[in-house]
């Protein structure tokens, strides 16, 4: 895209403008009030407008002055780190800490270039034991140890 000279600035501006626009649109349904008696919409609308303007300035600057190219997103760590954590959060109330930990450690290990499956299994087992000791026995968190049919 030849017309974007500074992609980092340009896309930052776009991100800020997006958030600013969302803030403006969503808070437009809130009561504005007056300066002396501010409603819930006053502050967010002011912030949203400010963010929109700042974002526009940053984006325009990105169009005009030269900057470094945007580094590529590397999908493997992104998906395997963040995705695994989300799944862990969703299943752990039913799967229990042991299975959850085995899953999280094994699958998130795959995010690394240096993945070795034997190592990941061993570390998963050790950490599952550690997790039970630290979180359940030590800190007494409200989480089941074993999967749903076996916890109480």
């Amino acid at each position, binding site marked *: 895209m030849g017309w974007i000279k500074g992609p*980092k*600035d340009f*896309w*930052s501006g776009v*991100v*800020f403008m997006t*958030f600013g626009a969302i*803030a403006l649109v*969503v808070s437009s349904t809130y009561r504005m009030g007056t300066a*002396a*008696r*501010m*409603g*819930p919409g*006053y*502050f*967010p609308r002011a*912030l949203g407008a*400010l*963010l929109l303007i700042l*974002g526009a*300035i*940053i984006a325009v*600057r990105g169009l005009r002055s030269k900057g470094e190219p*945007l*580094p590529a*997103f*590397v999908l*493997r*760590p*992104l998906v395997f*780190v*963040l995705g*695994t*954590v*989300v799944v*862990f*959060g*969703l299943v*752990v*109330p039913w799967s229990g800490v042991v299975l959850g930990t085995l899953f*999280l*450690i094994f699958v*998130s*290990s795959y*995010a*690394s270039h*240096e*993945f*070795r499956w034997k190592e*990941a299994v061993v*570390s*998963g087992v050790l*950490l599952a034991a550690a*997790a039970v000791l630290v*979180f359940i026995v030590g*800190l007494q*968190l*409200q*989480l089941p140890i074993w999967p749903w049919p076996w916890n109480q």
Partner: protein
Amino acid sequence: MDVFAHLATGFGVAMTPINLVYALVGVLLGTLIGVLPGIGPVATIAMLLPTTYALPPVSALIMLAGIYYGAQYGGSTTAILVNMPGETSSVVTCLDGHQMALRGQAGAALAVAALGSFFAGCVATVFVAAFSPPLSEFALKFGPAEYFSLMVLGLIGAVILASGSLLKAIAMIILGLLLGIVGTDVNSGAQRFVFGIPELVDGIGIVGVAMGLFGFAEIVGNLESKEKRHIISGKVKGLWLTKAQFRAAWPAVVRGTGLGSVLGLLPGGGAMLSSFASYTLEKKIAADPSQFGKGAIQGVAGPESANNAGAQASFIPLLTLGIPENAVMAMMVGAMTIHNIQPGPQVVSSNPELFWGLIASMWIGNAMLVVLNLPMIGLWIKLLTVPYRLLYPAILLFCAVGVYSVNNTSMDITMTAVFGLLGVLFVKLECEPAPLLLGFVLGPMMEENLRRALLLSRGDPLVFLERPISAVMLAGVVMLLVIMTLPNIRKKREEAFQEETA
């Protein structure tokens, strides 16, 4: 000598067995994460915040504070031995510290770093104790208009001293303020930006925001590159200084302590800024500047003292004004809020045990660090040999369980992952996450003070200029912004930050 009477109260609190244990846990964990790359104090405090719910507030804050200054010690250990800063505040220690290690003076470098830090910690403790009460008394006179202006000044100041683009940083603050007001509005009861998600009614939790932006994003970033760590092994001998080394080092320690204490007070200041400033100063006034970068002991002594003094002095604005000046202090605001303590000038009078106990614990923590860390260096080096591919899944596990345990909902983990994604995006776009976190914790306070100030003035915005203290602060904001737009200052600032990252 009021200060010493107060400190005596503080020591009474900090010396109770339970608080000693938490100080120890804090500094050990701090050292650990200081040694390990890939996880910083902000993410660690976020991780441990949930576990402090059940603790008395003093113990919780003592432990969390220990993490911050403990991290400075740990960071310098890896900087010297492995030429890899465990924390950003020890980047400059790499320059001369590692050179000393290569020349077989690793022991001396470690010793001067530890002793310098300890000296700085002692001085900074007294400094915090002496400075905080008058400042908080002054701040008690502040009305909402003054507070609002102070927050604007604090936020803008923090951004100017941070690296990177000024406009982007201000945009990040505003985004943070917006995220901070998500949830139920205290005044009207209206639900804002909730999008029908019940977990958002109480607002977004600071643990998720900080862990996503600082923890997850960092892990993902580390995994993107294939860089390998090179570990030097071998025993460190002679953990002491020769007379000549001592003579060369102590003036630098004193200067670094002074510089750190002052710079720590500034918004955006703290450990990192202080260490850079001290290195530059030592190099400027050295009899033989060419020795710097080749193992000059002053280049270790100064910055190491400065970063510790800076770390501790940055508690002053937090404890007296309720204004966090860097991301770690923002986490402390979160911790205090969780324990129903509103950070601000009233803390000294309403919670004297907490206030003085925390200050006294800083000195105790520093003493523990000197006594424990020098003998434990072998263990820390061993830890460094654990490959990152084994380390990060374990960190993820602790993060995930920590976030989940705040409210026992899966939604919190998903939210943290969303902030992790945002954090990765911000790294690519070169937008610093720290201003966002500052805005996030100040958001609700800022709205409240703006609202009250304008209510009292019947909607007249001139109130911010008519009240002298507020006007001075806003003048400061304008001055800072004008100075920053002057072309040659902007160039200088860019150069300075380039030097830092190089």
